[in-house]
């Protein structure tokens, strides 16, 4: 699903350098990326999503070389093939839950917001146990409910790849487990691949594979 080869990246300003000789994630795999702050985990997600382009090397997702696409195509590819789940949920406070879930459809022409998309959004929210909160605003939801809504938003366009950037970082232990269960369950149901950046050591055993990003050592999950 993800294939990175001889990747070199640095920001225009600053000392940061990222070098990934080889990185692969197979379809339907659930992979955790760990590493200290500043090691480049989030940068890796942004490179895979096509938000950043590498200085050299290639990044391919589902056999599409993302790094070779132009800006407009990268955005279309991202919104149709990749679902983002953020640590701070990043729901828009002025939209209700349903509008937040269908928001990606309203900000791009690559997706069409029709009746089936709306029905899917409602059904997804019901499965996430927030079906009765569709008309509530983000500020009226609990942390767990916010992340459920954010996962609904990420999954609605049927992405092949879910990128989770510390998706459980702001949740209490009980909600962490529930949200991760829901995320895994829906990822499996959608035959999607999950690449999750996390600091939470307790959750690592639930992933198929864990990658320590600092020294880029690969190791199998216990």
């Amino acid at each position, binding site marked *: 699903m993800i294939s990175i080869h001889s990747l070199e990246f640095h920001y225009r300003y600053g000392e940061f350098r990222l070098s990934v000789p080889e990185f692969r994630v197979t379809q339907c795999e659930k992979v955790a990326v760990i590493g200290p702050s500043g090691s480049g985990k989030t940068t890796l997600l942004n490179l895979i999503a096509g938000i950043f382009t590498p200085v050299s090397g290639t990044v391919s997702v589902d056999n599409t070389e993302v790094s070779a696409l132009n800006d*407009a195509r990268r*955005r279309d590819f991202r919104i149709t093939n990749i679902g983002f789940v953020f640590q701070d949920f*990043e729901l828009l*406070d*002025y*939209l209700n839950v349903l509008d937040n879930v269908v928001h990606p459809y309203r*900000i*791009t022409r*690559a997706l069409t917001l029709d009746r089936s998309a709306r029905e899917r959004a409602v059904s997804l929210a019901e499965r996430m146990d927030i079906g009765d909160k569709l008309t509530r605003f983000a500020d009226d939801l609990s942390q767990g409910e916010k992340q459920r809504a954010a996962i609904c938003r990420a999954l609605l366009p049927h992405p092949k790849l879910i990128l989770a950037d510390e998706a459980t970082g702001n949740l209490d232990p009980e909600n962490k487990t529930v949200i991760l269960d829901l995320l895994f369950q829906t990822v499996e149901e959608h035959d999607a691949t999950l690449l999750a950046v996390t600091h939470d050591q307790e959750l690592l055993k639930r992933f198929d594979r864990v990658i320590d990003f600092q020294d880029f050592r690969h190791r199998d999950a216990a």
Partner: protein
Amino acid sequence: MIDSLYIAWRYVRFNKIKTATLIACITLIAFLPLALQLLLDESERQLMSRAVSTPLLVGAKGSALDLVMNTLYFDDEVPESIAMMDADRVEESGLAFPIPVYARFRARDYRIVGTTLDYFDFRGLEIAAGRPLAIVGDAVLGAAVADRLGLKPGDALISSPENLFDLAGVYPLKMNVVGVLKKSHTSDDLAVFVDIKTAWIIEGLGHGHQDLIKSQDASVILKRTEKNVTANAKLRIYTEISKLNLDSFHFHGDDSKYRVTAVIALPNDTKSGTILRGRYISDGATNQILKPADVIDGLLQNIFRIKNVIDGVIFLVGIATVLAIVLVFALSLRLRQREIQTIFKLGCSRMTIAKLMGAEIFIIIVSSVVLCALMIAVVNHFSNDLVRMAFIR
């Protein structure tokens, strides 16, 4: 675009106070100069149309503006009066036709205008209900007066005393409303018209009382001689003119010396008007003759000079407001940087983000324009009355 408008609509609805403040600022800054211009145009129209249709005005020397404003618009400032013989002098000149106007007294906040029937022909005033003035004590009401006071022919209207503490002054007269004028959209709508003699009765120059010669009540008589009968304070003075006591009303003294506030002079032609004006140009003249259009034109020039200053102030305030609005949007963009990053990460283009912001500005500006248009429509609808309240009376 519909999606952008929808998202922008949700944003402006969620941030009601910020949106309302921005709309209020833009609306006010657009509304103020437009409304001011509208009211000035209407005031110019009202003032000039009436001034132009009144060729010449004779009155006591003094403030030309007070004379014109009182005679044409029945303004509060009452000019020095002149004698009725001044109207006769205009007629005797053979150069113009005089219409005396005595606009001094009031009835419940509305000016009582004592004049002759010629005034109605001159102004083209028509009776909507009832009949024209016929006898002393009759009153014909302007359309707005009848409407606001709820009066109709057959009702009565009492003149207001000039000074409540002047016991020897003008007594109120109960006038009979005999007619109501059609709406003319001029100051005539706000006047109570009476015959000039009725105005003199209100002034106390004419009065009616019980007949002392026929009176059987000896207690009323103070002194009776062959030629004269003197009554005491018990003598009943009529405060209402009716068919029964009409004959008892009479005037004392020379009516050519009775006062009027102005004489509208209608010259036979331009040449006659010029000659008539020439007769008032002398150092010793106690009266003046003037063209109301010239006076009003001077007044409007002053108003427009003030308007230019106000326009300048509004322009500066407008610039400050626009800068403040730009600052608000710039700060808003900064506050929403995280939101912008999020939707950008999701796959939104910079053009779409610009569209979202544009849609918000569009909604705010359209709302302001609609609100401003509604307010302008209201001002336009009431401009006639507003101008009278603000500029005329």
